[in-house]
Structure formats: structure tokens, C-alpha cells
């Protein structure tokens, strides 16, 4: 066991005997290939429901607390999403999703299994027919990873196959938070000769992307209150947008002046939709308040 990680239980045994707790540092990085958007729900997820085996079955492995994949009964996914919460626990653990033919499609871990299944059902309803759930007590990162590994290994040993949703490059099941997107760069670098004029690079960028926000600073750390508000609005509306940092003097050198001329707009931020300037912070705020941005959401 990797004992160097902060927040681990000192021994696997203890994870079965101590009371369940969820230290805030035991977060799962969203970059894990099997984690489906854990972060936003972390604070809301209740303590894991007790589902323990009798004391006699303890073995010095975290997964000892977990029923094996083959022994877990599948639960059918209800047609009505309102019934999901009643059928699946809002606790942490591992879950395996099966399609209509009973083929295992994806094994994931979550801090809120019911919410994750609800998300999958929304995005790929045709692949979500039934789900096996294994609640993990003391769900720190290692315990969850262990649980995931044990189900994956069990399935791969039995079938010789990786579930299609867990194959690398398959993004059907894993939604990366939009914030993780990098800011776009217009040029390969300040000292590189441009073969295409900057105006044209701007023109292509705003026409090839549905929503582009030219902001001061990066989308993860805007350097101006107006840019920050624009990012906040786009994020809260769930808009899938691209961002460009007009202060990036290395990769967007000269962009501020060129963009002001291109858009005939003297200030930043600037938001483009379908190649057209929609406006800056004031206009975006006003559209947001009138509900005019909901059409941009990809949901």
C-alpha cells in the first residue's frame, strides 16, 4: 500500500473498524481516468451508508469490504430519473454499468453514486440499463481506487476484456469539467514568423468555435474583474466555450490591438458567438439576467 499519501488510513484493517469519515483532503483528482466528475458533489455527499460484512470476513485488503463484481446483484436503471435516488445510494463507491444485452460497459468510482448514474443516464441512456454498486466505507482515494481495481481485474480475468468505456481515449463516460480546458493560443510564439496575419487567425478562431471569450488572464485565473464575471457567467450557464488570454505576450503577441480593430470594440473582455461579437461584460451580464444565454448551453 502506498503509505506516503496524505490522508490514508494507517492500515487497511482500520478502514473497516473506524467510523466513516470524509476528510476534505481525500479528494479524487478529476484527472483519474475512471472518475466521473467527482468534485462538485463532494461537499454534498453524505457519509457512506453502512454496508459491512461481519467481522469474521475481514482480510488485510481494502477490497475485502467490497462484494465481488460477480456476487453483486445488478439494479435496473429506472426510466424515470426521479426514482434514481431511491434505487442507488448517494454514497461513495464503485459502480459497474451494463447495457441492454448485459454487457459491462464501464466501471467507475464516485463520491455520489446515484448522481453519477443520473449523469450517465442523461448522456448515454442507451448504454445504461442496469448498474452494480459497491459502496466503499472510509472512501479515501486509495480505498476507492482499490475497489475499482478489484472489479476491473475481476472482469478482465473473467472475460479477457477491458470494459469499452474504460479503454483509454474513450470519453463517453468521463466528463471533464469545462474549467480544465486550456486557454487557446493564437500564435506558436512571439518570435515565430506568422504565415497568416493575426486578423485572419482571429477570424478563423471565432468562426470555427461556437463561443469564444477573449479575456485578461487565463480562464482559471482571470486578471480582471470584468473577465472574471464573464467566465463566471459562462461557467454557470454550462456553456462550452473557448478562452483566449489577451495578456499573453508570448503566444498572443499583438492580439489586443489587432482584436480591437477586428471587432471595432475598444475594451476587454470580448465574447463572440458564431463569429459575431456579442459584447463585453455589461452585455453578457444583461443577457444572462434576461435568460438569453441558456441557448448556448450544450446540455
Amino acid at each position, binding site marked *: 500500500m502506498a503509505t506516503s499519501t496524505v490522508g490514508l488510513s494507517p492500515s487497511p484493517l482500520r478502514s473497516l473498524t473506524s467510523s466513516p469519515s470524509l476528510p476534505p483532503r481525500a479528494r479524487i483528482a478529476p484527472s483519474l481516468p475512471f472518475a466521473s466528475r467527482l468534485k462538485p458533489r463532494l461537499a454534498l455527499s453524505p457519509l457512506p451508508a453502512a454496508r459491512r460484512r461481519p467481522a469474521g470476513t475481514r482480510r488485510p485488503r481494502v477490497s475485502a469490504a467490497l462484494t465481488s463484481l460477480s456476487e453483486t446483484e445488478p439494479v435496473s436503471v429506472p426510466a424515470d430519473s426521479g426514482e434514481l435516488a431511491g434505487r442507488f445510494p448517494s454514497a461513495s463507491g464503485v459502480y459497474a454499468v451494463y447495457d441492454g444485452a448485459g454487457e459491462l460497459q464501464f466501471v467507475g468510482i464516485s463520491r455520489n453514486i446515484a448522481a453519477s448514474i443520473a449523469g450517465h443516464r442523461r448522456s448515454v441512456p442507451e448504454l445504461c440499463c442496469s448498474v452494480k454498486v459497491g459502496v466503499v466505507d472510509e472512501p479515501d482515494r486509495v480505498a476507492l481506487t482499490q475497489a475499482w481495481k478489484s472489479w476491473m481485474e475481476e472482469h478482465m480475468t473473467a472475460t479477457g476484456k477491458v470494459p469499452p468505456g474504460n479503454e483509454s481515449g474513450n470519453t463517453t463516460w468521463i466528463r471533464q469539467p469545462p474549467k480544465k480546458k486550456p486557454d487557446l493560443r493564437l500564435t506558436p510564439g512571439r518570435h515565430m514568423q506568422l504565415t497568416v496575419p493575426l486578423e485572419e487567425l482571429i477570424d478563423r478562431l471565432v468562426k470555427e468555435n461556437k463561443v469564444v471569450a477573449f479575456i485578461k488572464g487565463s480562464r482559471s485565473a482571470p*486578471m*480582471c*474583474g*470584468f473577465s472574471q464575471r464573464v467566465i463566471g457567467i459562462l461557467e454557470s450557464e454550462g456553456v462550452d466555450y473557448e478562452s483566449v488570454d489577451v*495578456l499573453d505576450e508570448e503566444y498572443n503577441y499583438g492580439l489586443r490591438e489587432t482584436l480591437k480593430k477586428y471587432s*471595432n*470594440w*475598444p*475594451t476587454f473582455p470580448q465574447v463572440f458567438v458564431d463569429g459575431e*461579437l*456579442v*459584447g*463585453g*461584460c*455589461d*452585455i453578457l451580464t*444583461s443577457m444572462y439576467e434576461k435568460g438569453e444565454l441558456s441557448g448556448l448551453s450544450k446540455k
Partner: protein
Amino acid sequence: MASRASGAVLSRAGRIRSKLQSSLEASALEIEDVSHQHAGHAAVRESGAAETHFNVKIVSPKFEGKSLVSRHRLVYDALADELRSGLHALSIVAKTPQEVAPK
């Protein structure tokens, strides 16, 4: 340039007022200097300039039938000299007389 004479004596707020008044025939105009809120702003710190950020509330018949983008452009066009000489950002509320008329 007509603005040069007045520019020497008026503050930027005063110049903004007179330019918007004359070019947009504003029936109501509120101008508030909020530069202090942006004192830590990188661009402002470097230039050391005062009077960089303003809130402008303007009512003009020239906004009739125009989108928000076009209305803001009219304001920016009227203030092009100011934007070139250190005016950094405007927060604009642009309405037509009809839109502010009590119903």
C-alpha cells in the same frame, strides 16, 4: 479638434459628459468615476494614470432600434479619443427614452 480646447480644462469625466451629451443627444446621463476600484489593476498601476474606469448610464434617442452592441459602439465611438489617451474601461447602461419612461 473641437475637444482640444475643453480637454485642457475639464477632467476626463467632464469631457466624457460633454462628448456624450453632444454626439448622442443624451436626455439623461450619469457618469461615475470608479477608477479607485481598479487601483490595483495591472494596466493602471503601470501607467499611473487616474480616471481610467467609469460607469456610464445614458439615455439617448439614438439607441432606438439598436442592439446593445451597436449602442455600446456609439458610446465608444464618441469617446474614441479618451480610449486612446488612457481611458481603460467603461461600464455602460444604454437605454432609449422609451425604455426608461414610466409605464
